[in-house]
């Protein structure tokens, strides 16, 4: 069975996923900004219900807690909690102008000013104010002076970015009213909590400031029920956006209906239902049965696409996603520590063959990925590893020979030093068990390495052991898993900066290069988007030179939906397809 396939995917993205989930996803502001994401599919009428299949259950509604931070919850909250920026289908963050009329960044030290729409209110009528920004910053700052109700430590899925904020203050309360004094209990004394303009001052520059304050938690509720565990259901999870949660049946469904308090353009559909599937492969039969009308299964394989192809009157779309598979080389290994060995593996890996035998069967146009910071569908993408685009076994063999390794009669190279001296050069590749695409990739890799004289063993572990133990402890040689790229590349810093630094917690590679550290730091604190892109692309080039990891391909995302509905536009980011659900509707016939 496969519960948690998606979880595996999300988990694979650990650090980045957390950032993505906690911060980057937001909803598009209005109908006009759908330009590059795809065309609107014609006019839709008001009313109707759409049921979408989701493949995980929920563990609470506060997505900003580590306990509940899941992709599926983001898909629900896209339409429920206020999102200052929404990542559109072109993977660019776009300001949600119905909520924030303007957001500007500048100055040194960096300061960001948000102007909240004066009409913006929570479902219960409480205005959305600076207090909500103050509270959300405090809760996710990782600072121990701020505590949840009962003195509990705030459970924050990520404090990244928030921990660089010095202050959050309000100003300009509605209608020129005076600032509230704030209260000590609420820790907002003197911060003008009722202000409708919010100023966020950073201690150090944070290039991806747009990723913060997504999924804004209602402060007035959170202070009563508690951040950590208070958001257990619809009663607490009040809406500050297009739709409110009408009902939640654990493990079953979440039903959204229009938020009557919404101040902007209301959503088209009367009702959006999210139905949970314990096994995402069951979503196609459910689509076929018209139990759901929109699916986005985590598992994408021929079986799914072919059976979905038999469902009439549906649109099926495969989109390259932000998640990319890669090979991770542990340089603590005496052989993988040698650059020529890593390069030989990279030259011997026929990425094109891997693609055509796996994801290429379900999605066309997937190419070997040439960048770790940006995927091919992002505008910032540059192919930095073009010399590895085509497989080059002779080059691989000459690199190994160059090290003094001798090819034995069984066709495998034998090292002249270390523990495998005089034996066949052997590596174990590991990944998460229960993922057939990864298993197939490993098998193909095994065959390809055999061709250049490297013996590969395959050994997979459950996700908990693989991500929780083997990777962090460095108990692996070659690992195959996915990172999730985001529109906000700063998340990559902790993966590729020198492992000797404690802040580089996801560098399990034992990779260290001071030049790389410098580029990553510059990129993360860049004040302009173009500078950020340049720095990170340079950092990536260096990683290709050092052959730290070998990116394989972008994982395709698969969407299928009933043709009765219009304005459904796939979005490969972790915002998910409901990024513009407020525009979904039954086609006006």
């Amino acid at each position: 069975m496969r519960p948690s396939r998606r979880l595996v995917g999300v988990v694979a993205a650990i650090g980045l996923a957390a950032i993505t989930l906690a911060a980057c996803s937001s909803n598009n502001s209005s109908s006009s900004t759908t330009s590059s994401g795809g065309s609107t599919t014609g006019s839709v009428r008001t009313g109707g219900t759409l049921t979408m299949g989701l493949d995980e259950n929920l563990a609470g509604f506060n997505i900003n807690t580590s306990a509940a931070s899941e992709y599926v919850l983001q898909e629900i909250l896209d339409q429920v909690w206020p999102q200052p920026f929404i990542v559109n289908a072109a993977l660019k963050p776009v300001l949600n102008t119905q909520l924030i009329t303007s957001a500007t960044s500048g100055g040194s030290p960096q300061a960001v000013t948000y102007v909240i729409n004066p009409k913006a209110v929570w479902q219960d009528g409480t205005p959305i104010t600076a207090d909500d920004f103050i509270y959300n910053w405090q809760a996710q700052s990782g600072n121990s002076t701020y505590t949840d109700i009962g003195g509990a430590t705030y459970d924050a899925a990520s404090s990244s970015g928030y921990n660089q904020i010095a202050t959050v203050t309000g100003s300009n309360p509605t209608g020129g009213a005076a600032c509230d004094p704030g209260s000590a209990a609420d820790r907002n004394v003197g911060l003008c909590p009722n202000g409708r303009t919010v100023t966020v001052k950073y201690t150090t520059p944070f290039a991806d400031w747009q990723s913060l304050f997504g999924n804004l938690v209602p402060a007035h509720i959170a202070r009563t029920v508690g951040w950590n565990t208070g958001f257990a259901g619809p009663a607490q999870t009040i809406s500050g956006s297009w739709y409110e949660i009408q009902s939640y049946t654990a493990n079953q469904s979440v039903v959204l209906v229009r938020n009557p308090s919404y101040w902007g353009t209301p959503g088209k559909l009367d009702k959006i239902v999210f139905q949970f599937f314990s096994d995402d492969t069951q979503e196609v039969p459910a689509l076929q049965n018209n139990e759901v009308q929109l699916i986005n299964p985590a598992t994408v394989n021929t079986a799914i696409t072919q059976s979905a192809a038999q469902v009439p009157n549906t649109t099926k779309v495969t989109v390259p996603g932000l998640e990319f598979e890669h090979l991770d080389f542990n340089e603590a290994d005496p052989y993988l520590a040698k650059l020529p060995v890593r390069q030989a593996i990279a030259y011997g890996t026929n990425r094109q063959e891997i693609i055509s035998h796996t994801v290429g069967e379900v999605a066309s146009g997937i190419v070997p990925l040439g960048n770790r910071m940006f995927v091919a569908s992002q505008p910032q993408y540059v192919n930095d590893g073009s010399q590895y685009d085509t497989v080059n076994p002779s080059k691989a063999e000459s690199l190994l020979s160059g090290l003094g390794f001798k090819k034995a009669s069984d066709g495998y190279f034998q090292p002249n030093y270390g523990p495998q001296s005089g034996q066949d050069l052997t590596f174990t590749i590991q990944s998460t068990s229960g993922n057939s695409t990864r298993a197939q990739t490993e098998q193909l890799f095994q065959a390809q390495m055999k061709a250049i004289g490297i013996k590969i063993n395959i050994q997979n572990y459950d996700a908990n052991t693989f991500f929780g133990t083997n990777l962090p402890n460095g108990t692996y040689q070659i690992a195959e898993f996915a990172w999730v790229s985001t529109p906000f590349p700063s998340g990559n810093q902790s993966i590729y900066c020198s492992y000797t630094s404690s802040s580089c917690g996801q560098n399990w590679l034992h990779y260290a290069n001071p030049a790389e550290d410098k580029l990553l730091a510059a990129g993360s604190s860049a004040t302009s988007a173009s500078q950020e892109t340049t720095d990170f692309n340079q950092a990536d080039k260096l990683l290709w030179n050092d052959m730290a990891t070998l990116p394989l391909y972008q994982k395709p995302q698969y969407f299928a939906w009933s043709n009765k509905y219009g304005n459904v536009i796939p979005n490969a980011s972790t915002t998910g397809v409901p990024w513009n659900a407020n525009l979904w509707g039954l086609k006006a016939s």
Partner: protein
Amino acid sequence: MTETSDLSPRQQRLRRVSTSEVGMHTLPEAVPPAGSDDEARYGMAGDARGQLATVARRFIHSPMAVIGLCIFFGLAVAAILTEMFWTYSYTSITNTLNAPPSLAHPMGTNSIGGDVFAQAMHGTLQDIEIALVVAVLATFIGATVGAIAGFYRGGTDTALMRFVDLILVIPVLAILIVLAHIVAKQASNWLWLAIIIGAVSWTYVARLVRADFLSLRERDFVEASRALGASNRRIIVRHMLPNALGPIIVNATITVALSIVLESTLSYIGLGIQPPNVSLGLLVDQGQDSATTEWWLFVFPVVILVVLILSIFFIGDGLREALDPKKNRVRA
């Protein structure tokens, strides 16, 4: 039931061959008479060779058992031959992707060009290997524990049977899932899988042998051996065990079938055999989404799996009937 010792009135009457989980299968056995012909019950005592011939003759006269035997050995031999001589191995990767059955690939190919025939045959072999290890392991542990409990009774019996009860109150599959999870951390080796399945499969044999021993130890020939000064060990091994051999053999056969069920179920839920190794359960899991499209990925493994298990049940049933003297009893 949780308290085996109190089951005796039932156990006297019941002699189920198996209790399993996954399939939740109980292969029942005819209820033996309440009489006292235990010793002759499975006809293994006494003139061993003659009895063996009788058992063999009866077995051969049961068409289902013979069919089962032929299928089982047919599959096993086919799997071995395929492993040795077939063009492709189960790890082979060809450039023929998702091809329906053809002469080159009798069961088609999968999405990376693997030959399904080679995989199905390797899976069959893998399943049989695991099942045989499980059967040997479970029978050995079960017979030992059951013999000791039934022979010594008292505190030893109570302690051992309470332990057996542990496994009776929880679904076997649940225990296996917990164990498989731990084992998966060590290594995804099929031998480990066999060991954990064996670790939960021996309790039925233990109960069976214990019940037999409880009645056997009251029998004259045991008393006689004891009077002659034979050691406990000798009495257990030389005198009592041979008398309990019939049900043990039948049960071992059923254990083979049940461990294939358990293994394939574990593989189906992702806790059993891991790729690139294959088992039939894993192939079914991988092929289930293709059931209506690339049907060959699903249908062949399913059919082989069911036929394999079925054949062993038939063998077990045939053995049980052949070893059952009531079968040929004529009322006179």
